[in-house]
């Protein structure tokens, strides 16, 4: 016991056991979904190397599968891994069984149902179009409910605890639960426009701000804090060494909680986001460097005295390499947030390499290290294939190296090609396609790296199954004894000043107070940025000629979102000379006021499309391009969208969608909504007649007409009439 005050009465001795069944379930789910998520990753990596791997089917195109990959890896692989870690370690750290076995089960099966619904909805084009928050509103509500169940179960367990003070791992779990709840709810606010269709409550710049407030902090509080918690339990257990510095734990925990939230706008440098927000995002990201490295130091320095075992123990190897990748990623993050660096890295593969170093290296290795450490304990037998653990480690390590080296080279090359001017002052690589096809050999190397990592994961999965098969007929359930918390306990008065940090000890005994401070850290930082973003009108100068989309253009935009075009195409020309030379006038905040959701994207595998409407491209060109992109753009990795040419447009949903948008501020009149079907039909006929003029007949009422109408409208309002910002 950590009871430092010996004068309190000892509580009554109690007997209890731990619920390890739920941990076994989450371990299986994490490893199983991990294989699925990584497999989809390898498939979409193949699609980027050769577009034929899109299989010519609408359900398996890159734009629909990429969200499946990211969501599976984040929420299924990492998510289930987090829950396994939290449930196993919390029970032991607070000496109490989980609050409720029933809530644990609801949590488990509810979360798996959410994952299955995601896997079923993405290939069919149900998506909100916001990265890492693509799930549609009914699933978003389910996530909220299951998260509440998780929180209830977790805090209930803390309430029943027999250990007075909360260990640092628990602090990180608290931060995770609070922050993810806040982020998920406020980013996902949307107006439903059908059973599986909704529009983000926010538009344009504000939607972009909310999305990256969420996106960045999902990395912080779903892929970082819970894994630091995991590290603080499983690493000292596996190494048999005390944690390096309690003071460092305190300082890096609170600095992460208070600083992380601010950093989101670094995802929007050089966009139409106001410059002050961009600066805040950069400065707070730079400040995050040491708080993040505090975690790395506490991890690596805990191994002092155990380094001789790292060479031989594959579990420690997973942890050491994982923590090293954490240190690398959290140095690179602040680096990428510096505006000048970001102007080179943004929209390129550099970001992709960065997140994979984090996801495969840090998240993946921490999960695998934990699972291999847990296997003999959970299944009460030896690991079936001990040699495979080491093999898995090496396959995964070599896989990561192949992946990230190739993709760093690809990203850096592409960024340099985009900005290269000739001596005469013209773009050296004016053909966008060339800046992608030049990377093809790197994309093949990525496939090799991904496949190696997947191979390791499959090996781990088989090892898990074999170990499980060798389990005893019934699991032994050890019974533990500990006294209940004594009443009237008081911590010794804290000595020393603030930096001595003795005051923190009493906080650790008060989960409620502790949680309130986490809430204050997360919410106050959020409000400091959100309130000015929404209330300062000059952030988004009005452009009078910008009007809402016509009914057909709106339908086209919905197809654009459903197809996941934003996974490859941005809609944000940055105010950089090489951008405007290539794509046209830079994008203005006022142009996006009716964009629910924004579609600025985060990666350019294809060219920016914000000014595509001003390009001298006819309806016929667009149609031929959708039909067979290889014909118009030889060597492109864009798959064919033949189905848009074949399938009829569903006009009937348009009025309901316009009504939904009207309710959140898009100025459609009642007449426009009533006449929407007629108007859309007429506009589709007009596009079809343009196509007829180019000898392309039979496309009246086809989906492609809506897409063409949308693309030809994109970014053109600013040139109509009085287009200047007012």
């Amino acid at each position, binding site marked *: *016991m*950590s009871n430092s005050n010996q004068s309190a009465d000892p509580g009554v001795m109690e007997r209890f056991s731990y619920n390890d069944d739920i941990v076994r379930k989450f371990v299986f789910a994490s490893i199983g979904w991990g294989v699925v998520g990584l497999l989809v990753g390898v498939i979409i990596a193949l699609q980027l190397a050769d577009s034929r791997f899109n299989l010519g089917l609408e359900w398996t195109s890159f734009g629909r599968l990429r969200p499946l990959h990211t969501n599976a890896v984040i929420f299924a692989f990492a998510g289930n891994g987090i829950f396994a870690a939290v449930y196993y370690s919390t029970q*032991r*750290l607070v*000496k109490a069984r989980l609050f409720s076995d029933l809530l644990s089960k609801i949590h488990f099966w509810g979360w798996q149902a959410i994952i299955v619904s995601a896997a079923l909805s993405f290939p069919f084009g149900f998506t909100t179009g916001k990265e890492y928050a693509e799930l549609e509103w009914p699933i978003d509500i389910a996530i909220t409910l299951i998260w509440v169940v998780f929180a209830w179960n977790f805090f209930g367990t803390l309430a029943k605890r027999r*250990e007075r*003070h909360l*260990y640092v791992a628990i602090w990180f779990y608290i931060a995770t639960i609070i922050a993810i709840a806040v982020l998920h709810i406020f980013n996902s606010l949307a107006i439903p426009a059908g059973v599986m269709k909704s529009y983000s409550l926010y538009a344009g710049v504000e939607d972009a701000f909310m999305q990256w407030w969420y996106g960045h902090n999902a990395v912080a509080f779903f892929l970082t804090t819970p894994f630091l918690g995991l590290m603080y*339990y499983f690493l*000292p*257990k596996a190494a*048999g*060494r*005390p*944690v*390096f*510095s*309690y*003071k*460092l734990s305190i300082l890096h925990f609170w*600095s992460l909680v208070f600083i992380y939230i601010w950093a989101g706008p670094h995802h929007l440098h*050089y966009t139409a986001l106001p*410059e*002050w927000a961009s*600066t805040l995002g950069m*400065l707070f990201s*730079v*400040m995050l460097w*040491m708080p993040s*490295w*505090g975690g790395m*130091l506490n991890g690596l320095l805990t191994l*002092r*005295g155990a*380094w*001789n075992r790292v060479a031989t123990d594959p579990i420690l190897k997973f942890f050491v390499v994982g923590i090293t990748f954490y240190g690398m990623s959290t140095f690179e993050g602040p680096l990428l947030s510096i*505006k000048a660096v970001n102007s080179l890295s943004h929209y390129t593969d550099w970001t992709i390499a960065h997140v994979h170093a984090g996801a495969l290296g840090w998240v993946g290795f921490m999960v695998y290290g934990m699972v291999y450490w847990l296997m003999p304990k959970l299944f009460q037998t030896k690991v079936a294939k001990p040699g495979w653990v080491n093999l898995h480690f090496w396959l995964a390590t070599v896989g990561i190296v192949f992946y990230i080296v190739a993709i760093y080279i690809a990203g850096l090359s592409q960024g340099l090609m985009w900005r290269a001017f000739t001596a*005469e*002052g*013209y773009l050296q690589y*004016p*053909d966008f396609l060339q800046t992608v096809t030049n990377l093809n050999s790197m994309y093949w190397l990525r496939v090799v790296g991904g496949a190696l990592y997947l191979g390791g994961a499959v090996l781990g999965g088989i090892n898990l199954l074999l170990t499980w098969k060798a389990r005893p007929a019934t699991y032994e359930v050890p019974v533990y004894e500990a006294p209940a918390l004594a009443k009237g306990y008081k911590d010794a008065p804290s000595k020393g000043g603030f930096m001595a940090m003795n005051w923190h000890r009493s906080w650790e005994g008060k989960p409620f107070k502790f949680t309130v401070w986490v809430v204050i850290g997360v919410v106050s930082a959020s409000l400091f940025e959100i309130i000015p973003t929404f209330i300062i009108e000059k952030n988004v100068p009005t452009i009078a000629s910008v009007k809402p989309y016509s009914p057909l253009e709106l339908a086209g935009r919905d197809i654009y979102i459903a197809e996941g075009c934003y996974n490859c195409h941005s809609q944000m020309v940055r*105010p950089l*000379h090489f951008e*405007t*030379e*290539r794509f046209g006038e*830079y994008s203005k905040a006022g142009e996006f006021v009716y964009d629910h959701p924004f579609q600025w994207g985060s990666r350019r595998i294809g060219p920016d499309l914000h000014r595509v409407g*001003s*390009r*001298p*491209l*006819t309806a016929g*060109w667009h149609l*031929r391009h959708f039909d067979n992109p290889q*014909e118009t753009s*030889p060597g492109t990795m864009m798959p064919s969208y033949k189905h848009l040419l074949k399938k009829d447009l569903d006009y009937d949903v348009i009025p309901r969608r316009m009504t939904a948008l009207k309710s959140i501020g898009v100025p459609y009149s009642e007449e426009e909504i009533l006449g929407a079907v007629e108007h859309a039909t007429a506009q589709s006929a007009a596009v079809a007649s343009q196509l007829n*003029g*180019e000898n392309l007949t039979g496309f009246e009422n086809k989906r492609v007409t809506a897409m063409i109408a949308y693309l030809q409208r994109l970014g053109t309002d600013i*040139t109509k009439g009085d287009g200047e910002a007012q």
Partner: protein
Amino acid sequence: MSENPTPNTDPSEDILLDHNYDGIQEFDNPLPGWWKAIFWATIIFCVPYTYWYHFADGNGVYDEYDAAVAAKMEREGAGGPVAEGASGLMALMDDPTHMARGKAKYSTICLACHAADGGGVVGLGPNMTDDHFKNVKKIEDILTIMEDGIPGTAMLSQAAALNPGEMADVAAYVASLRGTTPANPKEPEGEVIPPWSAE
């Protein structure tokens, strides 16, 4: 707990706290000095950065962009000298600077229908490397077509995408493609026309 220090990393002088969570103990080590120093430096860095870029002379994103565009305007004027007529275009073909600009613009816009090397795209733009032309008889017709477009085809006016100087450079660049060997040439279309002439 196994206390098994290796010879070269001796943590025996660290003070162990009386914390014990499921067997996990914690040392009372101080924060590393370099860690504190860098953390403070990153905090202090915010002050001059914010002052310089938001309250003093530091060039913001848009200032830098405007400067880059101004430099371009100084170099090229509002589109450069407009070459008129066949002789003007033929002269541009001999000027590497103009050909470089023509190529750069061609490669952002025209390649969508005529392919990156001018070989043409099935169903869209014709091959411009052979001697067959549908709508061009003389070199200056290229410029006229770019200005006006060809009704009923995918060839639109390029006037919104290019200024007159750029348009002339692109026309000259297109003329220069004649006689080159594209990767996937489209079948010849139209009549054989005589070589370009300044007459």
